[in-house]
């Protein structure tokens, strides 16, 4: 029930599909409290990633796949999500080390490393109305699931559920990081685009691992 490099690559391809399908939604969310590019940014980045996966040698390890995703997003996203998700994936790649297969604990640890990377890069705290508000509960849920003997799919599914709730929790918040912070009080009553994309990405990973249903 572990996750091999093929599983990681499949999850990344699935993420690309989901991001592309939700491009307009993410753009609209970002239009209200940002610069209307979050969906386009992620679509650009994940499309570039799929091209690389199609054209170059397949990555040899989960870590290599995550690293390829990281460097591609860093180079192509163009907005805050690039360095943030890029750093998250770099840290996740380091966390999984040279393992050929990720188990549930390994996935939870990689998610923790990803969150730490986002926080190190963006300096946001929970409640600042950013992707951190989706990723923080997702990591906690993943760790709890892994500790209670869940499969990788179940761990990711728990993370995705928690991320959905975390994203929803950003609605009433006033943004303190990112472009939305320029809006002050006017940023309240809107869903943060980055928290939404985090939830979408985790859901796509869960579905790719076979545990998509809630």
């Amino acid at each position, binding site marked *: 029930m572990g996750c091999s490099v093929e599983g990681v690559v499949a999850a990344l391809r699935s993420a690309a599909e989901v991001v592309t399908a939700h491009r307009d939604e993410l753009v609209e969310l970002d239009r209200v409290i*940002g*610069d*209307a590019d979050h969906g386009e940014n992620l679509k650009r980045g994940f499309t570039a990633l799929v091209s690389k996966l199609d054209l170059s040698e397949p990555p040899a390890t989960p870590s290599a796949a995550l690293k390829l995703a990281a460097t591609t997003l860093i180079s192509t996203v163009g907005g805050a999500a690039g360095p943030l998700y890029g750093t998250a994936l770099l840290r996740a790649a380091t966390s999984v080390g040279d393992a050929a297969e990720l188990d549930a604990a390994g996935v939870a640890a990689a998610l923790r490393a990803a969150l730490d990377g986002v926080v190190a890069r963006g300096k946001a705290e929970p409640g600042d109305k950013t992707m951190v508000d989706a990723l923080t509960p997702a990591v906690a849920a993943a760790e709890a699931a892994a500790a209670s003997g869940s499969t990788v799919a179940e761990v990711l599914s728990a993370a995705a559920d928690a991320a959905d709730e975390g994203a929803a929790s950003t609605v009433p918040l006033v943004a*303190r990081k*990112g*472009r939305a*912070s*320029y*809006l002050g009080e*006017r940023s309240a009553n809107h869903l943060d685009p980055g928290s939404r994309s985090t939830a979408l990405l985790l859901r796509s990973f869960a579905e790719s691992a076979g545990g998509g249903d809630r």
Partner: protein
Amino acid sequence: MKVGLVIVSHSARLAEGVAELAAQMAPDVIVLPAGGMATGGLGTDYEAVSNALDRAESGAGVVLLYDLGSARMTAELAVESLGDPSRAYVVDAPLVEGAVAAAVAAQGDATLDGVAEAAAGAAREA
């Protein structure tokens, strides 16, 4: 009817770049660049600033931001030559950060005072 912005700079490209950056988060706000000299070099152009000031005014007033001190002086002269100089403020703010903050405030229908305050108080975040 939103407050308009004029970006007064010694460089045409700098003014245009600030205007496009600020406009990105404020699609309904008029943000006009007034940068460089008519002859093409680096410097400020009083007529260009005056023209931009006229075109940025849609009834809610105009906030002018500038790069260096001599651009501030040119902006002030342009404002003083208005029929009603109280309808335009030259604001002392970091140019890029102030322009984005001002544009976002104007997009949110802030008053002339509100937009000026948003620019002047532009913190370094985002």
